[in-house]
């Protein structure tokens, strides 16, 4: 497959990474007042750019909508897509993409106003539900309600900002989207405590970056950059100590990860310190999480499933060897 192979070479020649992100999702990707993109997904892009080009700012962020994201990727307009996209069978197989891993384990949840007095999704029979269109969300919703023999009225909305406004105005009783998005949205309400997230999570939503089928070299780079961030947290490597720990530590896995030992970088076609650059640029997974969506931010998400496996979470980076 001529034109998708050599993505790495193209990026290196171009000097920038074209990374598809969402047109604006609080905490995950949004431009700030200076026009700098910020967020959890954005950090993945920057990490990959740092690994390949040694420059976390050498990223062209391409905003994509739910409708346009896959075409942008398959037509090579972007090199990778880091936009809360659920890893599903048909996307992986039929749409011919390759998921490079999971950077956020999510699930679809519901948010309702507290005064409604609803405590379970099973009480939502007949409710009006705001939903973002063009995503797996609407399929999950249809499945959930029909399998529980309940009726509902969908109100499809194009963007998160719009959906949030509808929900706040009471045009729908329930807002459903990925739980992370719900939490992020709730965090910015004038009175967040007036809204509750229902306990039911009705789907598995493993969100992760993806690349085109057929260019395994580049796929590997994205996959292992993500893994490097996760492993770095597990191994205690942070953006603060990444500079010296590679030389000071005795831990051979850290040394391999940071390129002070072994040939991992060369196998990927990159410099030896590729992972060190990525970590130095954005921090390890935990730092990225805490800096963008963690409990210290207005969004205030707990680690939950996204904790390291050692802490009872699902994050489990394969060994670097």
């Amino acid at each position: 497959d001529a034109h998708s192979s050599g993505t790495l070479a193209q990026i290196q020649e171009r000097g920038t990474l074209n990374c598809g992100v969402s047109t604006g999702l609080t905490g995950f990707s949004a431009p700030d007042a200076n026009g700098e993109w910020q967020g959890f997904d954005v950090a993945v892009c920057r990490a990959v750019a740092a690994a390949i080009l040694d420059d976390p700012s050498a990223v062209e962020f391409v905003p994509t909508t739910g409708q346009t994201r896959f075409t942008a990727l398959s037509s090579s307009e972007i090199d990778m897509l880091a936009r809360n996209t659920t890893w599903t069978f048909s996307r992986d197989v039929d749409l011919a993409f390759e998921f490079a891993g999971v950077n956020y384990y999510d699930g679809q949840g519901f948010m309702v106003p507290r005064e409604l007095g609803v405590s379970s999704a099973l009480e939502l029979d007949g409710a009006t539900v705001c939903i973002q269109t063009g995503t797996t969300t609407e399929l999950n919703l249809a499945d959930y309600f029909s399998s529980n023999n309940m009726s509902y009225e969908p109100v499809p909305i194009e963007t998160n900002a719009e959906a949030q406004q509808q929900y706040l105005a009471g045009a729908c009783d329930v807002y459903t989207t990925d739980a992370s998005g719900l939490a992020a949205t709730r965090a910015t309400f004038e009175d967040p405590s007036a809204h509750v997230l229902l306990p039911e999570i009705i789907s598995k939503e493993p969100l992760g970056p993806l690349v085109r089928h057929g260019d395994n070299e580049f796929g590997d780079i994205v996959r292992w950059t993500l893994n490097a961030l996760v492993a770095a947290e597990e191994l205690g490597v942070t953006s603060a100590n990444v500079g010296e720990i590679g030389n000071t530590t005795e831990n051979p896995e850290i040394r391999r990860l940071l390129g002070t030992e072994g040939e991992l970088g060369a196998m990927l076609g990159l410099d030896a310190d590729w992972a060190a650059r990525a970590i130095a640029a954005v921090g390890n997974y935990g730092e990225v999480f805490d800096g963008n969506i963690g409990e210290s931010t207005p969004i205030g998400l707990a680690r939950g499933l996204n904790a390291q496996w050692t802490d009872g979470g699902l994050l489990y980076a394969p060994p670097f060897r």
Partner: protein
Amino acid sequence: MSELHSETALDSAYVRTEMLPEQAPPITAAGPVRWVRDNLFSSIANAIMTILSLYVIYVVLAAILPWVVYGIWDAGSLSECREIREARYGPLDGHGGGVACWAVLVDRWDQLMFGFYPPELYWRPILAFLLFLGGIAPVLYDKLPRKMLILTAAMPFICFWLLWGGSIWAPVLVAAGFGIGWAIIKFGTRFVGAMTATILAFIVPILFWVLLVGPLIDAFHSVAPIGIESVQSREFGGFLLAFVIGASGIILSMPLGIVLALGRQSDLFIINKFSVIFIEVIRGVPLIVWLFTAQLLLGYFLPPGSNFDLMVRVIIMVTLFSSAYIAEVIRGGLAALPRGQYEGADSLGLNYWQSMQLIILPQALKISIPGIVSSFIGLFKDTTLVVFIGLFDPIGFSNAIRADTDWNGIYWELFIFIGLCFFICCFSMSRYSQYLERKLATGHR
């Protein structure tokens, strides 16, 4: 008959000896009293409507004005705005009330205007905009010296260069292609005949652009590296994006529109039918569908491996779209010309292209300018649709701004501001086209 005359004539013969002076009309016939009576209270129904209208105006203004006027201009985020509001005007009572938080405009002004364009280069789009105004001025006002049309011809290339930057050779060589075409028509006719020259004048520049321009730019640039910092299309946004898409759409669609209009007027069956099909297909499908086509499908139809950036694809689609509308406008202009003009040109021995270029098009285009301006207004308004394919036009930016934690929840302020900007631009353009229509209606025919 004559006796009748004399009978009546006696008592009706009359000569005024002294002319009556002009008098002021009675108060009921002129002045403000008359005006109010005529315009506001000429009948009972009218009086009721007047009072109703006044009431509606009062209600609307009373609801909106305080919100606008007491708005807050200095805050760094929506929550700051809310704090300031509470400090100034006390807590909100239930629904409504409240004041605007205009601070978001101050905070995000640059983005709404220029998008991600590098701030240190803002002078370039501004200069390009001024050049654009200077370039179209002689087209819009025929009192300006005709020499300024040179600026008009150069303007697209200079603006392109200013906006995107890069090597100066790119616009120069593209312009050179037009020069080549012109030279072929001008000097080639003598050697190969008018028709062959015309065909060559189409084909040679296209070959030049496709095959030679790329290498030549590199060659020239390596010899004389003159250029300014280049800016990616992705960094365009806000009103800059709307203007660039609208203006390139209209400028690029003019030649295509003229060709289509001539094609649709042509007696040549195939050319006529192709033009008709093209125009009808383009006009029959909504722009938003064409934009999705640009986003989703255009890549399929380009040679494998080639890849334009999204903005170029959008400009291509918008150009095709507006060329169909422009073609219809120009067709109207062509149809409005009396047959005698064609015959006059024929009888002098001018050939088809000469009579088009010298006689028909100058007149038809002039009649069409109001219609073209209206198309431009429509096109400019339609640029907002690019938000659906992920470009950051002003409305797209309003979404992105609201995705920022600082401004999450802001709503009306952005829309009112965007609406106002569009209104100012479009309204002044529509006034201009109305002025032009009146001028054409009274002008020489």
